[in-house]
């Protein structure tokens, strides 16, 4: 394993009964990199995220994070090590204001540990973080119940919850799905800012145009197998990728 790799996935297999969801998957991630994870529906992207974050245990293979073997570790322990993720389907506390939804990540043992054993004023931190992801403070959006917020804000809330954990690696699972072009355009700068701050990010995305604008490298999956890896322009020229996406021989 390269000593500089932040995350290393080596020969991971996962089968659900007879279904081979992920098969012999290996890839590495260097610190500060933005990796796109793409592929057709059902190709195993979300399963890969679940494997890295411990929500699903691999049938075979190993996963290392910061040189530590995290294979089969409980998901909450993996979060404490510094991997945060967003979920494709957002499910906030609808009956609570947006900023109160932030209390859950801000209650994390990781946040406490990074702050030197003190939680601080969680409400204030929550409001600051939400402003960072575009909850306009002047308009009091953060005080509105999650039930009345449009999808764009709910996705930002999901992103803010991941940022609150101050992770070393962020995994964004289809952050742009269900959003309008304008909403995507307003979230992109936030991700670019995170990159400038040196965050390492894995993005699962179907909106390839936006993804390719910011991704350093792309891993393409099909039927659980890695069919291509490299810079986006190179990968999209590959015959296997064309076949997987377009369903025809190139």
């Amino acid at each position: 394993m390269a000593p500089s790799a932040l995350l290393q996935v080596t020969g991971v297999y996962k089968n659900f009964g007879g279904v081979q969801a992920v098969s012999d998957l290996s890839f590495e991630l260097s610190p500060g990199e933005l990796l796109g994870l793409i592929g057709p529906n059902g190709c195993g992207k979300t399963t890969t995220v679940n494997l890295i974050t411990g929500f699903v245990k691999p049938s075979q293979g190993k996963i290392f994070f910061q040189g530590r073997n995290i294979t089969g570790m409980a998901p909450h322990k993996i979060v404490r090590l510094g991997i945060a993720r967003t979920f494709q389907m957002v499910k906030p506390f609808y009956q609570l204001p947006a900023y109160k939804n932030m209390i859950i990540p801000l209650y994390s043992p990781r946040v406490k540990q990074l702050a030197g054993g003190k939680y601080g004023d969680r409400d204030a931190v929550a409001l600051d973080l939400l402003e960072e992801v575009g909850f306009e403070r002047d308009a009091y959006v953060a005080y509105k119940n999650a039930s009345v917020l449009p999808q764009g804000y709910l996705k930002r809330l999901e992103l803010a919850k991941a940022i609150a954990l101050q992770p070393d690696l962020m995994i964004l699972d289809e952050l742009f799905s269900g959003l309008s072009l304008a909403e995507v355009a307003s979230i992109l700068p936030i991700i670019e800012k995170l990159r400038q701050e040196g965050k390492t990010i894995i993005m699962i995305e179907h909106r390839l145009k936006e993804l390719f604008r910011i991704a350093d490298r792309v891993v393409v999956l099909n039927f659980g197998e890695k069919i291509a890896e490299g810079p986006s322009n190179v990968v999209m020229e590959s015959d296997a990728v064309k076949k997987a996406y377009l369903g025809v021989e190139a």
Partner: protein
Amino acid sequence: MKKRKERIDRGIKARSGDIFALSSWREMLYLSAPRLIPIIGFMVLPLVLGDYWQKVLLSVAVFALLAISWDILAQSGMISLGQALFFGTGAYAAGIFNYYWHWHPLISIAAATIAGGLLCTLFLLPVLRLRGIYFSMVTLIIPLMLVRIIEATKIFGGTEGLTGIEALSSKWIELYLAMAVLTAALFGFRRMIASDYGLILKAINDNDRSVINAGINIYWFKTQALFISACVGAFAGAFMTHVYMFAGMPVFALDYSILPIAAAVVGGPGTLAGATLGAFILVPLSEILRGIGGLRIVLYGLFLVVFIVALPEGIFQYVQRKYHQFERWVEVE
């Protein structure tokens, strides 16, 4: 002339979070009445009631505590059908401490509260991963099993139970101990539920994935909620052992499981105050209906059904809403 009903929040105008700018006695009363009325009520009731109703009041307090204990668990996503487990374990623990080791009743109650809480947490620890009906079924079965174990092995007096347990020194200590613990549990745990800690417990119920995703060990939090709830239930049992001067198999009876749930549901689950209010309605009602004999259960059941159908949110939520809003008819057009 058309009219339309308008609802207006009665709230205090200058308010930010929990900081209020109180400008009149009226506003102070508005804010403090919901807290003062139950506290004063709890303190005064023992003084104004006759002997018989004082006994009923003890029963009310015990069922209110069991209902609070049920509600705390339900908030954290654990629907228990076996509050009798907590009650019975506490009752037997107190019985054992006093019968075999002759501990002073107050010490025995305190020790049985902790010991009962620990034991019940241990009993349910293996099934903490179960959710919904699966968890409920296990809680229903364990007290029934314990009864049979006691019957078959004849431990702790077997079917006879432990008799001759020392009573608390006076009925006033009984009454005010029950009322003081009820007040502390009601207000203390309401505060806990409203805190960020309570929010995490509720989040575990609502969407446990998001809590795990914050690096929080949900089983540790569930264990804490279970221990807290079990301690409340165990106190109720330990207390009753010293009131009845007896601990036997009836302490695992189904009544102690079902009535608290009925109280919490009628009163309004999720608030603890609703659970308390429910116990204050259902237990005396059951006593009043005692006069009519066999039809008592029918009437009691009917009352439950009517309330659950008419006020599914629970009495407390309804009253709370009415308290914070006033309605008036305004002319339109």
